[in-house]
């Protein structure tokens, strides 16, 4: 029986990018549906994610899985025969989940401030953002990927933000490269993977989107 996989998403979402990359890595055929999250969420979205009413939502044979990190774990467990994303060793797995949680707690909120705030708040945010990236860079160390030699879970959780880096830098008026050059090399390396290249939007598109958001909210 063919699996029916639908992904409800919104193209700039770094969260949705995670799920897309995971599906691509596993070679899973899926139907992509773009949601108009600002103006007109579909009845399907509201039905499948009644608690948060947010994308991405993964619908597998009619059953919804919500929250991108949970979706990536789910995809890894269901399509377990190819490209393992999480390590098998319990301790390595706990480390991967820890860093995914760290990224989840820190990167989005701080990143958002680099284009949505100004003055003192912006200066604080830029400092904090660089510190967060430096912590991640230190965890990466000299490894090609966060998990070691293989592209995996933590890379997938973080890489979506790479498409937003130019936007953060442009609107926040700062540069990530000087203190995070190793992380930028990691980003370029990930972009060479087909699953990532297919799932991340062009940075210019993201910049255009942020410009529209700023106009809309008057920030």
């Amino acid at each position: 029986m063919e699996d029916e996989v639908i992904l409800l998403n919104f193209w700039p979402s770094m969260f949705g990018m995670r799920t897309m990359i995971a599906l691509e890595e596993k070679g899973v055929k899926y139907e992509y549906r773009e949601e108009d999250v600002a103006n007109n969420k579909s009845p399907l979205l509201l039905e499948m994610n009644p608690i948060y009413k947010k994308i991405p939502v993964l619908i597998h044979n009619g059953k919804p899985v919500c929250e991108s990190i949970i979706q990536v774990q789910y995809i890894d467990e269901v399509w377990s025969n190819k490209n393992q994303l999480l390590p098998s060793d319990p301790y390595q797995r706990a480390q991967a989940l820890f860093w995914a949680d760290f990224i989840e707690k820190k990167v989005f909120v701080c990143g958002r401030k680099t284009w949505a705030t100004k003055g003192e708040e912006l200066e604080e945010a830029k400092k904090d953002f660089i510190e967060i990236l430096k912590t991640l860079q230190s965890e990466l160390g000299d490894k090609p990927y966060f998990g070691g030699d293989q592209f995996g879970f933590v890379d997938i959780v973080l890489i979506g933000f790479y498409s937003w880096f130019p936007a953060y830098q442009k609107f926040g008026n700062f540069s990530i490269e000087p203190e995070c050059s190793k992380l930028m090399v990691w980003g370029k390396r990930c972009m060479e993977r087909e699953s990532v290249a297919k799932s991340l939007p062009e940075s210019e598109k993201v910049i255009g989107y942020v410009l529209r958001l700023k106009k809309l909210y008057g920030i």
Partner: protein
Amino acid sequence: MASEEVKVIGAWASPFVMRPRIALNLKSVPYEFLEEPFGSKSELLLKSNPVHKKIPVLLHGDKSVCESNIIVEYIDETWSSSGPSILPSHPYDRAIARFWAAYIDEKWFVPLRNILKAEGEEEKKAVIAQVEEGNALLEKAFIDCSKGKPFFNGDHIGYLDIAFGCFLGWLRVTGLAAGHKLLDEAKTPSLSKWAERFCNDPAVKPVMPETATLAEFAKKIFAKPQA
């Protein structure tokens, strides 16, 4: 490897710390409990969790594992041949359990924490209403997940039981202090019955604080400064 020394750095009153302790009890794994002094952080904690500097931390041999729900998964996988499975076996059920555990920590817990800090009746009523809204969602989640069995995880307590059940002491104490029962059998009958079963479970009883002791502690930490 599973036979290496196990320690938990934590505090008796913390619901998050209860989670790994319940999991270790379920797996019959002996461990040393290292109580953090209230108001300060030990050298060991700062060394074992340099990123967040928070409890609980599980020390297993020379490894340290942080974040309570991650620790519970680690315990389930490391001692997989001992005791019942903590996470459900089916990937979809696992995704649902993880979803609700995340909801509990990110949404449900926030107003609960704010009830004792609320300034005035209006604010208190508002946060109580938020907790009760969350309880109603969890009541439905319990019915869906348990499928007629006694726990979220089925016949035995599991990941989601632990993720939510660890807050039952604080739910009771906060309700007493606020003068409003927070887990009401009339509003959430299934959840209320589940709560009693959870608290009586042999893996939970040794680490669930006594209501009176917790109430005393709550008075101390939420005491308003004298004018």
